C-alpha cells in the first residue's frame, strides 16, 4: 500500500469474507497455470476478489469475432469510436447572447492525459471562427523597430522553430461559480482551458529580425477576423497609462511567446486561429490573438476595449483592476467528478490536473475531509513550465461522504487559495481568474456533487 494512500482500508479488512468455494477454485487454477508467479498472483487475487460476485455464464464470442472490419483509409482522417460520441465540446446557451461571441468547454471529465485532442480544445470567439487562406495571409511586424517586415506563413515555417507544451486558459474559467455553486459538471467548472504542444517561431526571433528599439516596453498583436482583437503585452520597463510600473512578475512572459502555426503536431484548427496565432504562455488566453496579422512594438499600452471594459475586475472597494494577466496556480480533481457516479465501494484513483501561469507545479496536495488533512499526490511526468501536470493518489472509498479537493503549490511558492480567501479580496461579483480550490462532495449514494465550502 502506498504511503501516500489516504483513507486506507482499516486493519483486518482484507481478512473479511474469507475463501468461498469459488475463490478456492480460482486459486487452484492460478497455481496450475503459472507456478512461478502463483504466490503473488494468488495473494493479489485473494485480496482483490474478496466480496465480489461471481460470473458463471460461459463466455460468448463478441459480435466482432467472426467478421472483417474496415479497410485502411476508410476513414482518411481518423475519428473517435462511435461509442465515444458523448465526448464533445459543449456550450452554455444562457451564458452569451449568441454562439458567435461565445465560448465552449473542453470535456475534461473524459480525458486522461495533459494533452487536449485538437477537436476538443475549448473555443473562444469574439466574431466567430473564420477560414483564413494561408497562401494570402501575411504577418506584419512594425512600430518601434529598425526595419518593419512582412512574412508569409511559409516564411514563418522556414525559420528556426520552437516547440513547447503549455496550457491555454480563458481567464473566465470558473466564472459561473463566483457568486455561488452553479454548474454541476467538471466540463463547465473548468473546461475553458486546454493544453497542447505548440510549434512556431519564438517572438524573440522576430524581434531580433526587425531590430526592436530597446525603448519599446509594450507590444500588441492584432487578428485578421471581424473582431481584429488586440491586447497590450508588457515587456521589461513597461509602465501603465498612469505612469506606474508594471510589476516585474508580468514583464518577462513575452520571452516564452511564439507565433504558432501548429498544435499537437498538425496545423492549427480554424477554431484556434489557423493559419497563425500569437501565444503567450501563462497569460490569460485573450492576449494570444488568433488569426494574427500584425505585431506592433510600442512604448505604452493601448488600453483597448478588451482592457477597459471586458477583461477587468470590479473589486469590493469599488475600483476596476486592469492588466491581471497571469493565470495563477490552479488545480482540479478530474476523477471522481460530478459527471460520473461512483461504482460501489473499493479502490479508485484520485486523478487530476494542476497548472500555474508562473512556472512549474511543485506540489499537489489532496484532501478528502474538506481540507482538514492533506496528503501529497504523485506528480506524473512530465512536469513542465506553464503546463498541465497530471497528479494521482490511490483512494479506497468506504462508501461514506467525502469532501474531496486538490491544492497546488507552484515553484514560486504561491499556494492555490480557498474560495473564501479569493472572495475576501475580489468579492462575489468577479468574473475572471477564479483559481480557488474546487471541492467535490461524494455522497453515500455514489453521486458526486459540485459544492462550495463557505467558511474556510
Amino acid at each position, binding site marked *: 500500500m502506498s504511503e501516500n494512500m489516504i483513507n486506507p482500508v482499516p486493519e483486518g479488512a482484507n481478512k473479511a469474507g474469507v475463501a468461498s468455494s469459488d475463490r478456492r477454485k480460482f486459486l487452484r487454477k492460478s497455481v496450475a497455470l503459472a507456478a512461478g508467479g502463483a504466490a503473488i498472483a494468488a495473494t493479489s487475487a485473494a485480496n482483490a476478489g474478496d466480496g465480489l460476485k461471481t460470473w458463471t455464464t460461459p463466455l460468448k464470442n463478441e459480435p466482432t469475432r467472426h467478421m472483417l472490419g474496415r479497410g485502411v483509409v476508410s476513414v482518411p482522417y481518423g475519428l473517435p469510436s462511435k461509442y465515444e460520441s458523448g465526448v464533445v465540446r459543449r456550450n452554455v446557451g444562457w451564458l452569451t447572447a449568441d454562439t458567435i461571441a461565445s465560448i465552449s468547454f473542453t470535456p475534461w*471529465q473524459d480525458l486522461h492525459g495533459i494533452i487536449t485532442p485538437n477537436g476538443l480544445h475549448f473555443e473562444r470567439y469574439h466574431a466567430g471562427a473564420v477560414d483564413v487562406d494561408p497562401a494570402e495571409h501575411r504577418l506584419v511586424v512594425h512600430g518601434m523597430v*529598425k526595419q518593419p517586415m*512582412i512574412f508569409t506563413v511559409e516564411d514563418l515555417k522556414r525559420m528556426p522553430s520552437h516547440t513547447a507544451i503549455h496550457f491555454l486558459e480563458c481567464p473566465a474559467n470558473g466564472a459561473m461559480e463566483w457568486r455561488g455553486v452553479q454548474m454541476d459538471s467538471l466540463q463547465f467548472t473548468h473546461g475553458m482551458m486546454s493544453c497542447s504542444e505548440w510549434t512556431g517561431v*519564438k517572438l524573440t*526571433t522576430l524581434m531580433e529580425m526587425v531590430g526592436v528599439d530597446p525603448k519599446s516596453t509594450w507590444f500588441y498583436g492584432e487578428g485578421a477576423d471581424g473582431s481584429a482583437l*488586440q491586447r497590450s503585452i508588457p515587456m521589461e520597463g513597461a509602465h501603465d*497609462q498612469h505612469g506606474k510600473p508594471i510589476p516585474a512578475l508580468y514583464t518577462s512572459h513575452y520571452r516564452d511567446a511564439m507565433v504558432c502555426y501548429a498544435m499537437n503536431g498538425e496545423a492549427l484548427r480554424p477554431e484556434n486561429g489557423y493559419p497563425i496565432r500569437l501565444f503567450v504562455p501563462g497569460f490569460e488566453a485573450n492576449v494570444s490573438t488568433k488569426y494574427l496579422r500584425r505585431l506592433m512594438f510600442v512604448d505604452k499600452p493601448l488600453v483597448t476595449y478588451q482592457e477597459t471594459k471586458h477583461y477587468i475586475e*470590479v473589486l469590493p472597494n469599488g475600483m476596476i483592476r486592469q492588466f491581471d494577466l497571469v493565470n495563477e496556480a490552479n488545480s482540479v480533481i478530474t476523477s471522481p467528478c460530478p459527471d460520473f457516479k461512483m461504482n460501489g465501494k473499493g479502490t479508485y484513483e484520485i486523478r487530476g490536473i494542476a497548472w500555474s501561469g508562473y512556472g512549474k507545479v511543485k506540489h499537489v496536495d489532496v484532501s478528502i475531509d474538506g481540507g482538514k488533512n492533506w496528503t501529497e499526490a504523485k506528480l506524473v511526468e512530465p512536469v513542465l513550465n506553464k503546463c498541465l501536470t497530471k497528479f494521482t493518489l490511490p483512494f479506497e472509498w468506504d462508501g461514506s461522504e467525502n469532501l474531496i479537493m486538490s491544492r497546488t503549490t507552484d515553484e514560486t511558492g504561491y499556494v492555490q487559495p480557498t474560495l473564501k480567501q479569493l472572495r475576501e479580496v475580489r468579492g462575489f461579483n468577479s468574473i475572471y481568474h477564479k483559481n480557488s480550490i474546487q471541492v467535490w462532495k461524494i455522497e453515500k449514494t455514489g453521486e458526486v456533487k459540485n459544492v462550495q465550502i463557505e467558511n474556510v
Partner: protein
Amino acid sequence: MSKSKMSNWGLGLAAAAVALTLNGNAFAFDTSADKSAPKVSGVGMNITDAAIKPWNISYFYDGTNLPDGKGTVTAGEKIYNAQCAMCHGDFGEGAHGYPKMVGDPVDQFEASAKAGVDAVSNRGLNNNWGNAPTLMDMIHRAMPFYAPGTLTTDEAYSVTCYVMNLASIPGVGDDFVCDKTSLPKIVMPGAKLYVTNSGPDTDNTRCMKDCYKGTEFVVEKAASIGDVSVGKVQKKDTQ
C-alpha cells in the same frame, strides 16, 4: 497627434541607426530581445510604413494614431438607430443579451461594488470605460457586430459621439463634435476607478494536518438553476 508621435519614433530609430553606423556593426543593435535569438537571413520582406498604413488602425487611450475626420451626435443618432439599436437598445439600455451603452451613474456603480451588488448588467460607458479614444477604436474596428469594420471614419466618429451623448458623458452635449483633438480631452466618469494589478493578492499556506480543527463546514451544493448537465452530459457509472 498620431503623425507627430509616429515621427518621434522615427527620429528615435534614426538616432539608433546612426549609432549603428558608428559602431560599424549592423548586428550590434541592442534590442530587448532574447540574446540567444537565432540570426535569420533571406526570409520575409521589408515593408514601408505607407504600405502598412491601411492596417495601422489602433487608436491608443491617449488619442495617439486617431485618424483625420469628424463626427457629430446628430449624424451618429441616425446610424445608431439603423445599425446599432437592435442590439444595444434604443436608449443604450442593451437588448437580447448585448451590452448596455448606459449603465448606472458612476457613484452608484462604485457604491454597488462596495455593497457587493455589482453586476455586469450595471456596467456601461458611463462607469466601466476609461478613455474616449478607445471607444472610437472599438466602434471603428469591430462594429457593427454583424458587419465589423464597415463604418467609415466619419461614421465611426459620429457613432462614438452619439453613444457618449446617450450615456451623458460630461462635455458631450448635443452639439459636440468628435475628432482626434476633442476625444482625448474627454474625461470618462469611470477613469478615476482604474488601477493596474500589482501582483498576487492571496496568501494561502500549505497546511497539511488539522488545518481547521473543530470547524463545522458550511457547505453549499450545486443549485438546480444553471445545472446544464441535466439532459446534456450523460451521467454514467464509472467503468
